[in-house]
Each structure stands twice: as C-alpha cells, then as structure tokens.
C-alpha cells in the first residue's frame, strides 16, 4: 500500500469519532432529502393504488331531491361511463348514551360490489336483511342496535359490522374543515329498499366510474337535466385531497429542512478537516520536502472526504429508506390504514447523494487548498496556533473565568459553532413553532365561526320558512345558507370548490382579508384557491355544478384553512339554488352553552337532516391534530439528535486541543471538581447562548417552512408563543449540555504522563 495512504488511514483511525460525527450529520441531511422526495412518491403511489383497487368513484353526484332511478338510468348512455351506482343518501338522528347524534344513511343495492366504492369489512358481517346496516369506521359506536329517525320515521336497525369505504377513508375530519370531510360522522350503509320504503322509490346520489379524465365533463353534461347539488371529481374528493396534501407536505418540508442540515454538515465537516490539515501542516511540509507532489498530498487528504462521504452515504441511504418507510407508513396510517407500496425509486437517492458529495468535496477541498498554498519552508516552520484570545475579567472564580475564556479562546470558530448549533436547534425548534402555530390557527379558524349550531336540511326549503321555523327562543339569530360543491375555473385552471352562500356571511364568521374587500356581492375566495386559479380581485371566475354554471366576480381573498372555499351571497347563485331557498341554517344562540340542549330540542324534527355544534368541530380538530402530534414531535426529537451531534462535534474540536492544559491541572494535584466546574461553565454558556440564538432561528425557519407549505397545504401564520420559546430554550439548552460528556470522558481517560513526556520530547 502507498505509504501516504497508509499514513492517512492511521490518521483516520485516530480521528474516527470526529469523522463519524461529520458523516452522521451529512447522512442526516441526505436522509431528509431522500425521505422528502421518496415518501412523497410512496404516499402518492400507495394511495393511488389503494384508491384504484377499492374503486374510488371518478365522479360523485348529489341531487337536491330524490329522483326516479329509471329516469336516471335513461341518462347513463355516455359510452365513457364504465360503471355506476345509484344510492339514496339521507340524514337522520340516533340517540346514543342519551345524546342525540347525527347519522348519515346511505342505501345501496349491492354491498359486495368490487368495481365501484368497494366496502372492506373490518369486523362482523355485511348486511343481508332489510333492517340491517353496517357502520363506517371512524364514526360514533352505535352498538348492535340503533333507532334512527329520518323525517319522523323510525328505523330499528341491527348493526352487523364495520366497514372501511374509500369515499370516507378519512372519516375523522370535521365538516367545515379545510377540506369537506365527513367529520367523524356516523355513516351507515344499508339496503336501498329499506330507505326507499321510508322515503319513496327514489335515489339522490350517483357514483360513476368513467373511462378517462377528458370524458368526465361530458358525463356530467349528460346528466344536466337532474337537480344536481354537487359534483365531486375524484381528484377533489376528500380522500384524494388529503393524500395529495400529505404527499406535497413531505415533498416541500423535508427537502427544505435537508438544506438547513446540508449547510450545518458543510460547516461541521469543514471545521473538522480544517483543524486536521492545519495541525498536520508540519507533516505536510515534511512530505513536500521529501519531494511528494502537492497533488499527491491533496489526494491522500481527500481520503478523509472519501471516508466521510462513504460513511455518510451508506448511513444516509439506510436512514433515508427507514425514514421513508416509517413516515410514509405513519402518514398512510393516518389517512385510513392505506397499505404501503414501497416501490424502488433511485432518483431520491441520487439527488441526496449528489448533494452529500457536493458538501463533502467543498468542505474538504477548501482547507486542503489553504494549507497546500504554503511553500516547503513555510509549511515546515508552521507552528499550530498557540495564541488564543482571552479577556481580563474580575470574576472571583478561576473555574468560571477559565470556562468562559475557553469558550471564546478562538472567537471566530466559537461564533461559527454557536451559529451552527443554534441553527440545528432552530431547525428542530421550528417544528415546535409550526405545531403550536398550526394548532392555534386551526382553533382560531374554528373559533372564527360566529354560529353555535349548524343545521343541514334533508332537502332545500325557503329562507322564510327556515327562519320562522328555527328563530324561536333561545335563538338570537338564524341565518339561512346553501352549500354547493362543484368546480371553479378561470382560464385553463380549474379546481373542485366548496361554495357557501348566505344572505349574512359576516354574521356567520369573521375573516382575515388578504386582498380586495369583504364584498359578498361578489365571491370572496380562500387564498389557496385564488392562487391555484390565478384569480385576483376584479377578475371573474366560473362556478359550475353539474351542467349549470355561472360567472362570479372575485371581490376579495381571505386567509382560510378551508383552502377551496368560496363565500358569496345567495343572490349570486340564484340560478342554481333557486330564489329564496336554502339547504341549511346557522343558528346563533344567546349563549354557546345552550348549543347542546338546543340541538337536543331539535330531536325528531322532520326538517332537520344533520346538526353540527361549533364546539364539536373544535374538539374534532383538536383530536385530529393530536393524532398527528406524535409525528411532529418525532421530527422534533430526531432533529434534536442532529443538534446534539453538532454540539458534540463542536465540543470535540474545541476541547481536544487542550490536553496539555488538562495535564497541567492534573499534575498540579488540583481537585477534579475544578476541571468539571470549568467545563460546566464553558458548555453551559455555549448551551445558553446557542439556545438563545436558536429561538430566532426557529422562528425564522418556521416562517420559511410555512411559507413553503402555504403552496402545498395551507397557510399558517407563525406565532411567537412564550410556551414554545421556553420549550426551545430549555430543550435546546439540555441537549447541547449533554455534549459535556465527551470532554469529561477525555479528562478521565487522559494519560497525563504520556502528554507530559510528549511535550518534553517535542
């Protein structure tokens, strides 16, 4: 083996711990990049495979009123229609544990169909008798029997099992949330004839599988004679939207975080290699004096980079794969236990590896170039830095003075380390800010609702009738509304939207205006949707439900967690909903405490389809957020690990040059507590300054990450909350402080006789 290579291998062995730490940081950056890109693909692929397999409908159409299925049958002539299903969907109520709950009943002919909206039996058995039903998982547990009231008709149903349905895959998202979720609704599938025997021989819900995307609008056009209240395309269906959001979130978030760690890895590796080549300057001079070329020397030092990169790349690939599997699995689990399809994708690994290589090459070449610029004479006479920076203090404790001066003995290096440690803690802390802000924002958005109870009717009714029926004591005001689900388009852009029309929108909720004005004589759009459509105030968008469409002028853009929302007045959608009619009513009570008793008083009201309490939407949101908290906290903890690695690396670099000082103190017979105290002050000050710096970094990074997330998911205003600041400070301080273990071990293991002898022999 080449002698310089052999020499280098021995040096590498001597500095294995530093190299492993640098490799770990590089691996982490690489793993984040890989995980972001890879998991986004895995989530998308797994979800699409599952939704294809379970037959999530391409088009879901709801009708304002029941229609004779024979009449609909005659319209299903478009050759693009592969298959379809007619259903009857009704809202009802059941009493569970003395509490009235809303139940959605869906009557279908054949529960065993596999070609469209396949029901997967989780437990029990599928319904087979007229008065049997199966419940969709995620809703309230009804027990074996349930008495459900629909339009004053009571159905005594036996609940035979629980199913998972692709259309309600994520059944715990609240209605009126950022996507039109089913809100943890209790949904029952039962025989079509059972519902028809109560309501009449009609259907009001159509599921269609079509041949291709292009034919969807033609299929919808073919049904234009029906009283359509909503058309939802597969890509706008709640399950698809959540999958898309989850995948986009991974794609945006993790690679962004990876860039932060790439910077940290670059600085950390640079500092390690720089210190190494600087302390080796004299050896390099000896090699040069022996006639070994600079190129040859540089190549041998590049071995450090090769080893660091190889270790980092191997670890990065393993971590990247493991994180991708874990995160995708968790995300898919949260989306309704979608089985993971872990297809192999080389591209994320190639991108991660390229970045890691770039980082290591830059971090290694710069210090080598600096040292190799010396001529033989300079290199031979090079004396490693023996001047350090120290300031005079009047501290009446030698250990404190020593600890603080040691921290700043090389100020520029200390500042770099403090910044990168703070940055790594900041990257971890940014999760805390985002979690806290998102939680606060979700609740704030729910609290922005001014109504206490939202009542949806079984079918449209007149505004006047709605107000007169519901505006009795203790109701302060009753605001009729209509909801429509359809498509909005502007130019070539279009997307599925949720439209809320009411005569008094401002009485329903408050808004945070971003552009234009809150003029509901036009359309006020959620910012995310406005961005997607490229719509700005003054422009006109087209809103379509079924075959009916109308232009609405955009008057304002608001922050809204429901990213696909349009708010407008009834007048704007008269052509669709009909004059003076509504599909529900918002109830404002004298006091929100009355909401539950008020909703109970509506029990058995034949006009009432479903009831939602504002408090329940907040609770459900909170619950939903809690379920994803573990994932966010896991990220926080994992990022802290890298912060710890950076802190240990910094401590190693700064303390490993002090063997002679440790030895002197030991040889003077000073108590061990003196050295321990000095280190505690030094590392404690380092931890405190880094943790303090980490707070603004965490806040800034959270803002950067949320602004990136805004495009993919939804906007979250980042809030500087005291609790999060304290959490970042305390946890940051504790994690950095752990790095004291390394110098303490070094002092304990130091062979001071050997160090003294080496000093003499040098």
């Amino acid at each position, binding site marked *: 083996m080449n002698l310089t290579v052999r020499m280098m291998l021995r040096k590498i062995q001597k500095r294995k711990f530093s190299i492993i730490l640098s490799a770990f940081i590089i691996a982490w950056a690489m793993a984040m990049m890989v995980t972001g890109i890879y998991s986004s693909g895995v989530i998308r692929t797994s979800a699409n495979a599952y939704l294809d397999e379970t037959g999530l409908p391409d088009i879901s159409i709801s009708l304002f009123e029941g229609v004779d299925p024979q009449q609909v049958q005659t319209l299903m002539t478009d050759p693009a229609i592969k298959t379809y299903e007619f259903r009857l969907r009704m809202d009802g109520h059941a009493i569970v544990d003395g509490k009235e709950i809303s139940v959605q009943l869906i009557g279908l002919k054949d529960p065993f169909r596999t070609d469209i909206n396949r029901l997967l039996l989780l437990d029990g058995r599928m319904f087979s008798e007229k008065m049997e039903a199966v419940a969709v998982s995620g809703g309230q547990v009804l027990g074996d029997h349930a008495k459900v009231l629909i339009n004053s008709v009571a159905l005594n149903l036996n609940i035979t099992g629980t199913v998972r349905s692709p259309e309600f895959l994520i059944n715990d998202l609240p209605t009126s949330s950022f996507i039109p979720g089913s809100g943890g609704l209790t949904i029952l599938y039962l025989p079509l004839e059972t519902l028809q025997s109560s309501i009449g021989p009609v259907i009001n819900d159509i599921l269609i599988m079509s041949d291709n995307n292009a034919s969807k609008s033609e299929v919808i056009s073919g049904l234009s004679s029906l009283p359509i209240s909503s058309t939802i395309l597969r890509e706008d269906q709640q399950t698809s939207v959540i999958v898309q959001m989850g995948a986009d979130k991974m794609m945006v978030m993790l690679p962004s975080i990876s860039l932060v760690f790439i910077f940290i890895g670059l600085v950390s590796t640079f500092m390690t290699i720089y210190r190494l080549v600087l302390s080796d300057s004299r050896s390099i001079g000896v090699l040069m004096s022996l006639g070994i070329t600079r190129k040859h020397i540089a190549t041998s030092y590049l071995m450090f980079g090769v080893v660091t990169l190889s270790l980092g790349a191997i670890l990065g690939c393993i971590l990247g794969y493991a994180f991708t599997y874990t995160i995708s699995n968790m995300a898919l689990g949260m989306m309704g236990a979608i089985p993971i399809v872990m297809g192999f994708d080389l591209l994320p690994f190639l991108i991660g590896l390229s970045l890691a290589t770039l980082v290591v090459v830059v971090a290694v070449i710069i210090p080598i170039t600096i040292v190799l610029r010396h001529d033989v004479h300079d290199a031979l006479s090079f004396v490693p830095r*023996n*001047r*350090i920076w*120290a300031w*005079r203090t009047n501290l*009446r404790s*030698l*250990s404190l*003075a*020593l600890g603080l*001066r*040691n921290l700043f*003995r090389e100020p520029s290096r200390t500042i770099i380390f403090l910044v990168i440690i703070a940055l790594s803690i900041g990257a971890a802390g940014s999760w805390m800010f985002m979690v806290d802000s998102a939680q606060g924002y979700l609740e704030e958005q729910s609290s922005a609702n001014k109504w206490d109870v939202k009542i949806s009717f079984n079918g449209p009714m007149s505004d006047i009738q709605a107000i007169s029926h519901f505006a009795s004591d203790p109701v302060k005001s009753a605001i009729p509304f209509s909801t429509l689900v359809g498509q909005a388009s502007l130019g070539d852009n279009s997307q599925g939207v949720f439209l809320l029309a009411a005569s008094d929108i401002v009485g329903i909720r408050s808004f945070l205006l971003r552009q234009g004005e809150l003029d509901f004589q036009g359309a006020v759009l959620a910012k995310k949707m406005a961005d997607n459509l490229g719509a700005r105030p003054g422009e006109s968008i087209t809103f379509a439900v079924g075959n009916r469409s109308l232009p609405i002028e955009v008057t304002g853009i608001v922050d809204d967690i429901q990213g696909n929302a349009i708010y407008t007045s009834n007048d704007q959608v008269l052509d669709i909903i009909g004059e003076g009619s509504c599909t529900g009513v918002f109830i404002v009570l004298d006091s929100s405490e009355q909401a539950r008793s008020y909703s109970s008083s509506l029990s058995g009201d034949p006009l009432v389809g479903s009831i939602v309490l504002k408090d329940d939407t907040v609770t459900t949101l909170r619950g939903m957020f809690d379920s994803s908290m573990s994932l966010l906290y896991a990220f926080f903890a994992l990022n802290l690990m890298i912060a710890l690695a950076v802190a240990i690396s910094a401590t190693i670099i700064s303390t490993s040059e002090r063997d*002679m*000082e440790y*030895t*002197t*103190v*030991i*040889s*003077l*017979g*000073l*108590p061990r507590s*003196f050295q321990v105290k000095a280190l505690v002050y030094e590392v404690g000050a380092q931890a405190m300054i880094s943790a303090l710096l980490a707070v603004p970094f965490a806040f800034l990074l959270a803002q950067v990450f949320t602004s990136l997330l805004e495009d993919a998911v939804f906007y979250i205003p980042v809030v500087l909350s005291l609790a999060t600041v304290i959490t970042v400070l305390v946890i940051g301080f504790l994690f950095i402080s752990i790095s004291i273990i390394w110098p303490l071990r070094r002092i304990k293991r130091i062979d*001071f*006789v050997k160090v*003294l*002898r080496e*000093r*003499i022999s040098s």
Partner: protein
Amino acid sequence: MSYLSVETVTKSFKNGDETTTVLAGLNLSMGRGEIIMVMGPSGSGKTTLINVIGGIERPDSGRIVLDGTEVTAMDNRMLNDYRRNDIGFVFQFYNLIPNLTAQENVMLALEGHDLDWTEKSGRAIRQLELVNILDKKDRFPQELSAGQQQRVALARALVKQPKLILADEPTGNLDEATETKVIGILAQVREELGTSFIIVSHNSRLRAHVDRCYELRKGVLVEN
C-alpha cells in the same frame, strides 16, 4: 533521618517486546532546604525520577518517603493531594494555562486549599513580587517572554509553600541572562523559605548554585 529518602527505586518501560529499565534500584537522600541537581544524557531517566518522586508516576518497586510520609504507599487520591500540597513542579515548557493571567496561574495552585479569594490573591501577589514579576500580573502567558513565563511557573510552584520543588530543565528554554535571574531567584527562595529543590538539567552552569550534583547513569545516581 533524611527529609527525602528514595530507596532502591526501580522503574521500567515496555516498548513493544523490549523492556527498558530507567531506574535500577536508585537511592537518594536529601535534607530539608537542600538543592540537589541531577544531570544525565537524554533518555537517562531524569524526568522519570522527578515524576516518581512527585507522585506523577509510580515506581515498579522501592520506597519513597518525604518528611516521614511514605509516598509509594499512597493511593491515587492521596497522590493527588500530595501533588497539590507537598510538591511544586516547574516544567521545562512552564505549562502555564494560556487563558489565565500570570496572577491567576499562580492562584491556580491554591485551588482546593481552604483559602478565600482575597487570601489566594494576596499570596499570589507576594510570590510574583518574590520572583520579581509583579508588574506583569495581569498579563496572559502569550504576552510574556520565556523567562517571565518561567518566573510565573516558579511562583506557581512556590505559592503553596511545598515541601519539595521538582524542576525539570527550568533553564532549558532560557537565554543566559534570564537563566542567571532564575537561578538567583531559586537561591533567594531557598534562603528565605528554606525550600528543598531537586533540579533536573543538562546545564552545567547550574552546578555552582546547588549543594550536591548527581549524574544519573544506568539507572542509579552517581555523585558528581
């Protein structure tokens, strides 16, 4: 009875398969206030001798007794206390802590002694005055010349009033003028405090200032 008694002390080092004996049944006896010099070529074991007397290294066999206390019977903790209380080291390269001032370096030797800050500070100032470097008390080592650093190291060794000062090549890095100053200080300290010294050195000019001079030859001391 002698103040320091080194009796048949042996010390060997293993270097691969080879064993080198540097102290081969070495004996030494000295009285209080004596200054002894040990000379010898490089690798003869001079540093090992002061290391075993100073409790930095343990001998393989033999006995060392200082002022009636057997050093070779001490455990690690006691050896630490022994170095802190009874021994003053002066190293060839001074071994000052670079980010402590001259005064703080001297006070460092009093850490672990039951003295308050004012007392430690006062003692350090007195020692710095004794070695004639008080005006540099607030300087850091890197702001001092080699001779000044050696004087600070000497003050650090003296400040705790040890029973014995072990000096390893105390003039090894000094020019002749500075060397003369340092030797003068040693003599003055012995005069004023009655401190005992063992000085290991190549420097034959020191011989004129010591009570006895030995040469370390084949692991034993031969009076020179």
